[in-house]
């Protein structure tokens, strides 16, 4: 009974994290999007941890306990945590950069007003809008 309770708790947590992450990820400002991606990575980290099966009181080392737990998911989840941490740092920097460079934190490119092509900033030389489009 206790085991089932823990499984329900972990499964529920993964589900809620995924739900929250997906919802936030679809927002229109970069800060909620980054938060959403972070929640998604929490969800997947918990999920990886749980695929080694949930066993209370079992060590991941053979010989320490009667039935050891699988150590590999713990190694995998450590790798995943480190990578998602690094990636979050990168996207936070990029979000800040976009905010300071463009003056707002909207995820969308600015809408095409007065006939401005939405790809007006495609010019890779200066990334400036075309002279006509800039007015």
């Amino acid at each position, binding site marked *: 009974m206790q085991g089932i309770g823990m499984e329900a708790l972990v499964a529920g947590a993964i589900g809620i994290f995924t739900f929250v992450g997906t919802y936030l*990820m679809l927002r229109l400002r*970069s800060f909620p*999007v980054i938060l959403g*991606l972070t929640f*998604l*990575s929490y*969800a*997947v980290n918990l*999920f*990886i941890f749980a*695929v080694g099966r949930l066993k209370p009181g079992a060590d991941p080392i053979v010989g320490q306990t009667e039935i050891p737990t*699988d150590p*590999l*998911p713990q190694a*995998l989840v450590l*790798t*995943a945590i480190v*990578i*998602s941490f*690094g*990636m979050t740092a*990168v*996207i936070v920097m*990029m*979000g800040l*950069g*976009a905010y300071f*460079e*463009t003056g707002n934190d909207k*995820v969308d*490119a600015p809408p095409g007003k007065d006939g401005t*092509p939405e*790809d007006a*900033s*495609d*010019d*890779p*030389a*200066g*990334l400036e809008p*075309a002279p*006509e489009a800039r007015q």
Partner: protein
Amino acid sequence: MSGAGMGHLIIAPVVLPAVLAGITLLFARNRPGLARALAGAGNAALLVIALVLFNAASGAGPELYRLGDWPAPFGIVLVLDRLSALMLLMTAGLSMAVLLQAMATGWDRRGVHFHALWLFQLMGLNGAFLTGDAFNLFVFFEVLLIASYGLMVHGGGGPRIRAGLHYIAVNLVGSTLFLFALATIYSVMGTLNMADLAVKLRDLPADDVALMRVAAVLLMLVFAVKGALVPLHFWLPGTYAKAPGVVAALFAVMTKVGAYAAIRTGTMIFPPDLPATGPLLGQMLLPAALLTLAVGAVGVLGARSLPRLAAYAAIASMGTAFTAIAGFGPQAIGAALYYMVHSTLAAAFLFLLADVLASRGAVWLDGDLAAKGPRLPGPAAALFLAAAVACAGLPPLSGFIGKLFVLQATAPEAAWVWPVVLGGSFLMILGFARAGSNLFWKATGPAPARPLGLNELAIPGLFLLALAALSVLAGPVSDWMAVTAGHLVDPEAYIAANRLGEGA
């Protein structure tokens, strides 16, 4: 390690750029000349190593490299086979040429750490092509992605950084899906070594079939994000159009990582004759591939700027490649490999050319804006014509031969392939013709202040030579691809090379 084989040379394509990138980062930060020398020498060495490995893999069967000498499936292994050797050679060759172009156009001096990021990018790409472990594939994906984030925003600017934000967000979601897929696979199979998975999946208990089907589809979704398959392609046009042209040219091989991973998993881990998944993956990939081809072709026709035109041409070429990959048979995979080499070269060619033209103000393809564009010299127009011929798949260049192989390899029941591939080619011809006439014939502006020199057009010309060579040598090349596809479809040698029994 085995004495007669390649030994430690197999890991050199991963270790060499990693070490050089670190050195570049530490000692060449304020010495652009030294950074250029390190990256150039490293890339040339990688090309030599790739040639040696390619030669070895062509002659002998797959060769194993155990990291730390831990036996598979417990340790991580690298496996050199014909496919990974081909991808290594393609990456090293492309990156060498594009790096020279980056130096010729001065792109590498518009921000710090360009060369270090470039080397890290190569490390990730090479590792992804070599690894025989699914989780390690994820790690190398992340290595190549994090380097590509830096390269993509190289040179800075608000719109570019915003496009970079989209690119990172999409790829983070892709990475999360990848982890969900891998964790599901591990929870059922208890292993992530690709060869071990291939063996164990053959006797999958019926209770676990549903979970593995979910995992297989999740995995394919991740590779579809990387390969920019519709409807998961939305990240590509903005990213490739806003990235520096030389970086976009290198990224021509990034979408091929998705294609490579799809081929590897679809032929070895989840082959069409596997009872658990059956032809599921091919059935899902084929409609998406045809839709990708159609969307890419329409995008080429409708693009308003030259970089965006090149980006949609890249999407269309991925559609064609995945149309062949979805067959997962020997003939289809052989056709896909030939077309992938062609489309990498053609896309890089077009991106480099678009970058050179755009640096002279020839960006816009719309009537009014195009008319104000600069008048450009004949050689540039001739090169654009050649790039258009290559990308649209017209004779005499290899795009035509590649599409012919793809069409020949389609199963008779896939009736939609012929009309979509041919109709898509027609739309692309129209799109390129419109772009070319607007860029070169209707432009009435003054000639660019900085004339287009031979130094900037030499490397794009080199790509044209490579495409011509691929066309002339289509016979031997496609024979080589056919043998490779045969090995992929019958992966027993690859599995045996992993020496799975030894660790038990």
